[in-house]
């Protein structure tokens, strides 16, 4: 008789060390409740603009269903290059410095894997997007959290970065505008970080997927700072700016040596991003500016609505300057983030994400996405008010 199989025995140790996503737990809880209003969704509520969808339909009609170069369509890389030189006055060679990926998630994974040796430390300012820590662990690296605080507007301070750097530090992951706080960093703030980064000779993975979604002032692209281009892996994508989440399309830009290393991993795990999505992305870059700007203005109005609403309720809300998340404090209710989010879900059917899911620095906060309709935001605010009044 053959031996019985215990599949769990085969699971790699690293998998057991990575905690399950806190967001996943809220997904499961929220799925049990009908008619909940969701402020938990990290994706635009706009449908991809019609002209982009139409370009994809047309490409299918033309039979454009093949693989593309591992790097992505040259036409798309040229458009990406043009767009960044126009926006930030930085130039990337479409032939060797741009890699088209399946979402920023893949770009992030490939970027981390391409530079991380076992035991390398990667600094992650928190609160941070939930994928950063696990991605570093999967790559055999050691995530080193740095706490950002509301007192500093959730910006990374150069002295905090400096204090976290050891001789094992390989890279820093930056994410501005930030998910979950909505914080941004000014050019001056980033210059100070650049000084530390250069001094200690470390790489920066800069996730700027929300760069188009900034309010009251523009975005500073980290690699556009003096001396930073050669030590930055710039990640960006189409999901947020053009409401193209389901297309799973993004890109990385970095010096040729880094892009070649990333491409090596990408070609064996993904081969290439889907051609249909790539053709849609070309259309987005060429003709998507007006609709994108309109979406940003809509988000801006919702941002004011939710921030002033939360403040009126008594939940002190940090003013987000980018992305589409409000990050109010629930500390003065006496409840923890998780207690607040869970009770709000069960008692008032409003889905939010507790801040501690994004690391310890998020304790006492709540992530509320305002990428939902004005009516839903107003209804959610009324329910949150009823919940807080009842405490």
């Amino acid at each position, binding site marked *: 008789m053959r031996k019985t199989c215990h599949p769990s025995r085969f699971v790699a140790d690293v998998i057991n060390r990575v905690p399950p996503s806190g967001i996943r737990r809220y997904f499961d809880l929220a799925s049990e409740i009908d008619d909940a209003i*969701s402020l938990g969704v990290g994706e635009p509520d706009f449908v991809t603009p019609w002209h982009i969808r139409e370009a994809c339909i047309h490409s299918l009609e033309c039979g454009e269903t093949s693989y593309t170069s591992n790097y992505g369509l040259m036409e798309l890389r040229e458009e990406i290059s043009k767009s960044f030189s126009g926006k930030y006055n930085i130039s990337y060679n479409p032939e060797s410095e741009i890699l088209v990926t399946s979402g920023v998630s893949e770009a992030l994974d490939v970027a981390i894997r391409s530079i991380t040796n076992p035991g390398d430390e990667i600094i992650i300012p928190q609160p941070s997007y939930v994928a950063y820590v696990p991605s570093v662990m999967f790559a055999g690296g050691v995530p080193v959290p740095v706490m950002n605080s509301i007192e500093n507007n959730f910006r990374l301070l150069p002295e905090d970065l400096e204090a976290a750097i050891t001789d094992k530090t390989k890279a820093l992951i930056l994410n501005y505008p930030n998910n979950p706080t909505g914080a941004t960093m000014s050019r001056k703030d980033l210059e100070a970080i650049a000084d530390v980064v250069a001094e200690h000779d470390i790489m920066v993975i800069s996730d700027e997927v929300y760069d188009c979604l900034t309010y009251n002032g523009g975005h500073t692209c980290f690699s556009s700072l003096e001396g930073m281009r050669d030590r930055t892996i710039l990640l960006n994508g189409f999901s947020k700016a053009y409401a193209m989440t389901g297309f799973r399309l993004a890109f990385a830009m970095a010096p040729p040596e880094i892009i070649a290393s990333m491409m090596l991993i990408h070609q064996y795990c993904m081969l290439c991003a889907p051609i249909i999505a790539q053709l849609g992305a070309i259309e987005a870059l060429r003709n998507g500016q007006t609709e994108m700007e309109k979406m940003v*203005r809509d988000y801006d109005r919702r941002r004011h609505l939710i921030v002033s609403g939360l403040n009126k309720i008594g939940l002190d809300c940090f003013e987000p300057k980018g992305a589409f998340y409000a990050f109010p404090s629930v500390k003065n209710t006496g409840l923890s983030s998780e207690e607040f989010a869970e009770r709000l879900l069960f008692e008032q059917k409003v889905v939010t994400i507790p801040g501690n899911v994004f690391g310890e620095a998020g304790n006492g906060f709540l992530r509320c996405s305002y990428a939902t309709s004005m009516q839903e935001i107003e209804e959610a605010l009324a329910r949150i008010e009823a919940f807080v009044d009842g405490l």
Partner: protein
Amino acid sequence: MMGLLNMDEKTRHILECLEEDARISHEKIATLTGMPVGEVSRIIKDMENSGVIRKYKTVIDWDLAGDENVYAIIELKVSLERSLGYQALVERLYKFPEVRSVRLLSGQYDLSLTVSGSSMKEVAFFVAEKISTLEQVQHTATHFVLKTYKEDGVILYEQDHLARLPVTP
């Protein structure tokens, strides 16, 4: 007559709020834009005075309301007067209450009118007696509207809502 005013970002926000909901209060616009109410009111007054805001209007699904009115699009081919161009004719046309809109077109026809009446017969007679008989009008083509699917950017039938996950990573 385009771009007489140099619109700033704040003004655009306010105009978009009003275009979305003509009944929105100045206080609500102030909340949505983060501007003081007084500034919102002042900009709206300026926009009204300068004619950028022409009228506060409601988009109504008349079919759903059970309205029996008939609408037609009338295309006109016209001859021009040397000194006045289209202006004299257009001024005559838009004074008729039956005429809801007047547009100058490129292509085969010169003008397009939207006309309403209580019956097809009434619209047809109006075109035959009041429009076709004008001196400058050489030719007309009348298209009766059978159903309106979209009006002023608003889709006039119930659409299926796409389901989103309640939580995403």
